[in-house]
Each structure stands twice: as structure tokens, then as C-alpha cells.
């Protein structure tokens, strides 16, 4: 089978055939962006469905099973309902920022998707500072949350947004440092090169002990970064209503909701790329069929998404002070020591390579 997976180039070459090069490249980018938007809007909806099903199984329930076979169209129906709902707002809301906030959140999470190597060459944007780009983009989303909480003119929304600020900015450090630990192994920030180095064994094996510690720290910090339980200080149904999106309804609410699930996918996808060899199959069993890489990538990512759901439905919630204690007194010092250990391992060449 010979499917051309390099979509950006394929589309651009096809467009150059009948229009000038400048127009073709801009149009090509737009088409790729639209394809990604369509795919991940639907994928986000199915992540919501997966979350609800997994939650149901953890709680010995059945989950949505009425709309379509096995409830497959449940979230589609929900999305249609949200589209048709009225967009409400508070009287003294800061209208401009209030309307802008959801787009900040959804656009920042969609932008991060561009750099993932779903399989060899199936990567919209192979930037040479990939990891850095991901860390930077994922912290832009918190601006949207802060704006939403501030402009809603609602005390609960503001408290939720401020908590989000505290939480995201703290845990950003751990995400960055744990990814940096792995960058010591790869020697490159470019995602395609990180995948190349993993052909000698996934990084979590290459780096053994410090890599496993880095992975654990990354998953904890990643769960906190996406504002999911047990770190859902931001939405805190029990004490803050719905937190920063209390005043949002309809499609604007849906953007926040979708962004949360796409963020979860992104966190899992970064972990897949950096720790588990992205699209590489275990022991290279399907190396001859390049398009199967998509299957491996999505499979590994969904396993990690499942792990995050498992966290959510197992652990009790933390208080704000416990949240900050965990980050500043435990994760951060461990992470700093871990980087030193990893540096020594790389320096003495103690990595495991096949």
C-alpha cells in the first residue's frame, strides 16, 4: 500500500499545479488546518463519550447507550443541542473579553495538535523547537481561563480562574522539567528527531530509572495541567458551581469543554511521543507498513488517556494548599534531582540501547 501521508506537501503540490506558489501555500495551510479542525472536533466528542463510558464502568454503571448503537451518537446529539442553545451572559460582564476567552482556550489547544508526528511524515508542522513550542502553547490556554473568570463578573468564576492560574503556572514547571529530562537523552527538541532516536528503544527504556520517575511526574503534572480531577480546583463543582465557565452557555461552553478533552489528548500525545516512541511499533513489528504508525500512535495515546481517566475516578480531590505542597515541596525538588541523575547517566553512557 502506498498512501502518501505527508499531507502538507501533497496538498501544496496539487495546488501549485493550477495557481501561483504563494497563494497555493497559504491555501494549502488553510486546508490542512480545516482537516485537523474537523478531525479533532469529532475526536474530542468521542473522547467525551469515552470518558463517560469509562466512568460508568468504574462505577459499575452502563453509561450512555440510547442514542445510536451503544450510545455512539450521544455526544453528537449533545453538541447539536449546545449549538442550538442561547448564548447567555451577565449584565456587567466585560463583553469583549467574555466573548474572546473561549477562543483563546480552544485555539491554543488546537494549535498544539499541529506538531504531533502521527506517523512518519504525517505531521502538519515539523518545527525544530517542537517540545518548546508545545510547552509554550499549552500555557497560553490559561490566559483564556483567566479572562473567562475575570470577565464573567462572577465571584465564583473569578475564584476558579485564580485557582487555575496558581495551579497551571505551578505545574507548568514540572511538565517543562520532566520533558527537559528526556530532552537530555534525545539531544533535540524536534519531535521527528526525538522519534528517530527512539528507534534504538523507547526513551522510557533508554533512560530507565530517571525516565520512569520523569514519566510519573509528567503524568501527575499533566493531569493537573488539564484541570482534571483529582486536581479540579478550577471547576470544583462542590464549592464553585462550574468555576471559570459558570456564566457560559451554548457553544462557548462547548468550546471550554472540548478544549479540556483535547488538552487531555495533547498531554497523552506528548507523553506518547517523548516516552513511548510515538508511532514506532514495539520491536518494529510493523515497520514495513508505514501507515500503521497512526494506529500505534493513537493506541498508545488512548492508553495514557485511559490512565488519566483511571486517576480521575480513583483519587480524592486535593485542597489548594495540598496541591501547592505537592508541586513545590515534592515534584519540583524530585524533578531537579532527577535531571542531575539523568545528566550523569547520559554523561557516563549508562543508557540502555538495543
Amino acid at each position, binding site marked *: 500500500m502506498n498512501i502518501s501521508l505527508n499531507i502538507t506537501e501533497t496538498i501544496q503540490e496539487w495546488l501549485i499545479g493550477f495557481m501561483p506558489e504563494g497563494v497555493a501555500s497559504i491555501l494549502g495551510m488553510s486546508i490542512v488546518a480545516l482537516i485537523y479542525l474537523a478531525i479533532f472536533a469529532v475526536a474530542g466528542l468521542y473522547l467525551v463519550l469515552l470518558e463517560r463510558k*469509562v466512568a*460508568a*464502568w*468504574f*462505577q*459499575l*454503571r*452502563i453509561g450512555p447507550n440510547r442514542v445510536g448503537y451503544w450510545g455512539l451518537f450521544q455526544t453528537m446529539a449533545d453538541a447539536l443541542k449546545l449549538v442550538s442553545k442561547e448564548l447567555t451572559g451577565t449584565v456587567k460582564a466585560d463583553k469583549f473579553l467574555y466573548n474572546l476567552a473561549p477562543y483563546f482556550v480552544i485555539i491554543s489547544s488546537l494549535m498544539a495538535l499541529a506538531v504531533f508526528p502521527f506517523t512518519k511524515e504525517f505531521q502538519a508542522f515539523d518545527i525544530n523547537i517542537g517540545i518548546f513550542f508545545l510547552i509554550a502553547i499549552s500555557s497560553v490556554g490559561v490566559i483564556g481561563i483567566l479572562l473567562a473568570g475575570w470577565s464573567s463578573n462572577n465571584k465564583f468564576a473569578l475564584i476558579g480562574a485564580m485557582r487555575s492560574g496558581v495551579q497551571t503556572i505551578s505545574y507548568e514547571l514540572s511538565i517543562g522539567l520532566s520533558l527537559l529530562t528526556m530532552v537530555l537523552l534525545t539531544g533535540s527538541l524536534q519531535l521527528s528527531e526525538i522519534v528517530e532516536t527512539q528507534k534504538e528503544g523507547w526513551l522510557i527504556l533508554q533512560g530507565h530509572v530517571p525516565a520512569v520517575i520523569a514519566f510519573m511526574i509528567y503524568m501527575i503534572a499533566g493531569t493537573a495541567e488539564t484541570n482534571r480531577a483529582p486536581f479540579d480546583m478550577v471547576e470544583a463543582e462542590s464549592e464553585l458551581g462550574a468555576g471559570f465557565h459558570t456564566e457560559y452557555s451554548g457553544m462557548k461552553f462547548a468550546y471550554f469543554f472540548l478544549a479540556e478533552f483535547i488538552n487531555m489528548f495533547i498531554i497523552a500525545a506528548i507523553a506518547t511521543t517523548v516516552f513511548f516512541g510515538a508511532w514506532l511499533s514495539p520491536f518494529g513489528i510493523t515497520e514495513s507498513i508505514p501507515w500503521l504508525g497512526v494506529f500505534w500512535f493513537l493506541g498508545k495515546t488512548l492508553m495514557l488517556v485511559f490512565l488519566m481517566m*483511571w*486517576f480521575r*475516578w*480513583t*483519587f480524592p480531590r486535593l485542597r489548594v494548599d495540598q496541591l501547592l505542597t505537592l508541586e513545590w515541596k*515534592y515534584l519540583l525538588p*524530585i524533578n531537579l534531582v532527577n535531571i542531575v541523575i539523568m545528566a550523569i547517566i547520559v554523561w557516563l553512557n549508562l543508557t540502555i540501547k538495543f
Partner: protein
Amino acid sequence: MSYISDIYTGIKTLLTGMSVTGKYFLTSRKGAITQQYPDNRSTLKMFERFRGEVVMPHDENNEHQCTGCQKCELACPNGSIEIIWDRGIDEATGKKKKFIDKHIYHLGLCTMCGLCIEACPTDAIVWAQNFENSTYDRTQLTKVLNRPGSKVKAGVED
């Protein structure tokens, strides 16, 4: 060194929790407790102690066990039970005797407290397990518990 042991116990307890929920996840197929209600109407059986509504069981001879003592009427805190009674001649002994004409039960007033059933000395009224009690007209919620033509079972009053 409590710092390191804290981390160790922390991770250990978290993993214990995850193994518990993981077991639930794996066995959820067998143990799903959800009742898919309108679909399983024919097989759904409510629990014995479920309080649906008060009924008066009758046997095959159309006989009930209510002596008309009115203890249930007195026990009811909000007047859901109303007993219309009369005196007549007992055919067997020839003495004057109290018997019920109508045992009226207002389901719309009932709070399912169960005091009437506890008060009943002859177990004439019991809980039924039906729960689909909604009607289009509230007059249908006023029920006469004893069937027309029924009489008290012989020997209950002794």
C-alpha cells in the same frame, strides 16, 4: 527521613486505590447495577421492603382481615386513611358487631411512613411494591381498599 517514606507510602496507597478501582473496571460487565427501567418492566421486581402503596390483601373467598378497629386511622399522622364503618348483627353469634363499610386510602396524602401498618393488630393492610402510581386525575388516588362484597375473615377477631 519522613520525606522519602512519605513519598513511598503516598505512591503505595495511590496504587492500592487504583488496583481497587481497576478491579471494579474489569468486572463491571458482570456487576452493572443499572436498571434500564422501561425496558425491563416485565422482569423488574422491587425489593420486599419497598413502600409503594398500602393495600389490603383478600383471599380467594373475598375475605380480608380488617376488623374495623380504626387503629390505622388514628395512627396516620396526616389523615390518609378514613374508615367508614357500621354496626350489624353477627350471624354466627347474634351479637352486635362493628364491621367496615369502606376502608378509604388517600394515596395523594400518604407519606409512606408506615405507621398504619405497624399499628394494625391483624396485619390486614400491607405494603405493595408497585411504584408506577402516577395518574392523570387526582381523584383516582383516592382508593377503597376493601373490595365490594368482601367481609372479614372468620376467626380474625378472636
